[in-house]
Every structure is written in C-alpha cells, then in structure tokens.
C-alpha cells in the first residue's frame, strides 16, 4: 500500500486492460468460429452458439427501452426541407430501400424519418395471392417455419422458446366461439388446437430496417383478444436471434389471438431497439414502449363485448398495423 501510495507500484492502465480483455474475448470468439467451420467442413452441423445467462443479463441491463424512446423522439423532429433529401438518401443507400414502390416517391414529402419509415406502398405494388389461404403479412425474411413440437417454437433453427411463455396463460378462450372437439388436452399446445386432426404451425418473418414496415392480415379471421407484453427491446436481427434463446419472450410484443376457418390463429408483432412501438389500427387503447408499463407483466384487452360478439373481422391482405421508430 505504501509503495502504491508513493507511486512506485504498477499503475493500472484502463486502456491496456480494455485492449487485453477485448482482445482475449475476440480471440476466444474467433477460435469458436474456427472450430464451427472445421465441424462444417467435416459435414457435421455445429450447434448454435448461445449467449450464457450473464451475457443475456448484461444485454438486458442496457436501457434499450429508454434508448428506443429517445430515438423515437429524435426522429419526430421535423427536418428542414433542404435536409430531407440527403438524410433519406443516406438511409435508402444504407438499407437498400426501393423507393420505386413507395406511394410517394418525393423525399421532400416526408417531414421526418419516422414518417419516411411508415411510408405506404403503391396499391399495385403487392398483389395478394388469391389461391392460398395464408399469405405473408409483411415484407421481410423468413427466419423459420414449421410445426410446433413439445410446446417449443423455433425462432431460428435449433434455438427455441417456450410457447406458453410467449403467449402467456390461455385465458382468451372464452372470447373464442368455437367449441373444443379434441380429447382432454394434456399440454399447453394441445389446449390451442380446437379440431381433431389439426396441428399447430408457426412462421417467423424478420423485417429489416429498409423493408416496408406496415403489416397486413395474413388470412380471413376474427380477432378476439389482444395481449400486450411490455419487455426489453433487444435487437431481433437474425444474428441476435441465433445468439439469444427465448429472444421473442424477452422483447416487447403484441399478441393478437382469434379464429380462422381451421381454428386458432394468432399474429404477434415483436418490437426491437430501433423499432420500439407497435400500432394496431383498430386498437386505439394500445400504447406500447411506454414508461408506465413494467417488464414482466402483460395487459389484456378483449375485442369481444356485449355489443360486438364477433370481435374484429379482418380480411386477407387488409391493413392491420405498423411498426414505428422508437
């Protein structure tokens, strides 16, 4: 202690410490990737490299909701007309936006980046497939799809999340008209299936920053219930989805449940850091990414009331909602 007090001891240099730990971590990470490549070259599929609990806790400790709201406020500032074209052009160039299909191509029309982000498409830009019963609700990339097995859903291949954690307890059934025709359910998954001979399917569509960010009804259905889960706002890009197990259960999301011709149907919009808030056009009560909600809770709203036993009937391709910056 006396040596340190006299300045004779080794001095702690934060930059050196940071470089050493950062370099060590990167080397360790690169070694793991090298091992994965070796396995792949031998024809063995490498298991996904998942974040451990500490890494997830560290990521979740970042105030992503606060950052997202600040980002949203910043993007609501009206830009001077002369600045609009260079800023939006940079965004278009960075994220590969196709402005030819935007309803309004003139960049000066959008007062801020939020408005530009919510841009609509020309009516003929996206023909809705008539011959199939389920269509894509949005522009994006297919992360994963398939049957739900053992109450686990895959966000990407090999990385799963719990169906029950994702949807929450099944208390919306009273809002649905169809009566159960299957034997006594033994699991949460079975409780969702209402007709004999049916199975539960899922599909994940990732919307990249340059994509059209409104979403539409994927089929003809009746929306009976909405459940809003306030949560973290971690990135949902495919790399993070491969890294963090149960990512979609951690993040803020809005679950719409209802019925279609074959039974249960649900659409969930999952938020992310830069796209923190979700709007459902027919639901004026819904407010997402708001400081008044705490993580870990959920808020229910039933669209079925005494005056409206049907709920909200949506037609395939109809405008349903949108994601917003912040």
């Amino acid at each position: 202690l006396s040596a340190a007090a006299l300045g004779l001891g080794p001095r702690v240099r934060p930059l050196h410490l940071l470089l050493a730990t950062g370099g060590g971590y990167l080397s360790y990470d690169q070694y793991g990737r090298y091992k994965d490549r070796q396995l792949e070259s031998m024809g063995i599929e490498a298991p996904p490299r998942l974040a451990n609990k500490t890494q997830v806790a560290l990521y979740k400790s970042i105030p992503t909701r606060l950052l997202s709201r600040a980002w949203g406020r910043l993007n609501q500032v009206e830009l001077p007309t002369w600045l609009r074209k260079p800023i939006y052009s940079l965004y278009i160039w960075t994220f590969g936006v196709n402005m030819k299909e935007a309803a309004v191509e003139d960049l000066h029309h959008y007062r801020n980046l939020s408005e530009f982000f919510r841009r609509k498409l020309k009516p003929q830009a996206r023909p809705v497939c008539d011959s199939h019963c389920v269509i894509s609700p949005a522009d994006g990339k297919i992360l994963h799809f398939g049957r739900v097995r053992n109450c686990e859903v895959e966000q990407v291949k090999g990385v799963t999340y719990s169906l029950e954690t994702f949807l929450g307890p099944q208390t919306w059934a009273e809002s649905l008209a169809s009566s159960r025709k299957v034997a006594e359910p033994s699991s949460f998954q079975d409780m969702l299936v209402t007709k004999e001979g049916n199975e539960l399917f899922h599909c994940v569509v990732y919307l990249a920053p340059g994509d059209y960010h409104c979403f539409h009804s994927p089929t003809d259905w009746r929306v009976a219930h909405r459940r809003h889960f306030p949560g973290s706002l971690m990135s949902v890009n495919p790399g993070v989805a491969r890294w963090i197990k149960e990512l979609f259960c951690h993040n803020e999301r809005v679950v719409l449940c209802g019925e279609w011709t074959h039974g249960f149907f649900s659409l969930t919009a999952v938020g992310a850091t830069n796209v923190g808030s979700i709007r459902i056009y027919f639901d004026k009560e819904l407010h997402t990414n708001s400081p008044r909600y705490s993580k870990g809770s959920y808020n229910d709203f039933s669209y079925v009331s005494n005056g409206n036993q049907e709920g909200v009937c949506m037609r395939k391709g109809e405008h349903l909602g949108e994601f917003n910056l912040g």
Partner: protein
Amino acid sequence: STIVLLFEAPRDFTFSLKPGQKIRFGEALGTM
C-alpha cells in the same frame, strides 16, 4: 422487428418456403 404467426391447421398443411428466403407481403406462405 419481427412478426410471428402461430396457427392451427389440418395436418396436410405445407409451407412453400425456404429458411432465409425473402418474402413480400401478399405472397403465399403455404397450402393445404
């Protein structure tokens, strides 16, 4: 942002997709 669809359908429902493929709103996801 991400959209997750979860739905009940007859066993013969098949997706006409490939993981990682680009898709546009309005395009078919699968068929029965």
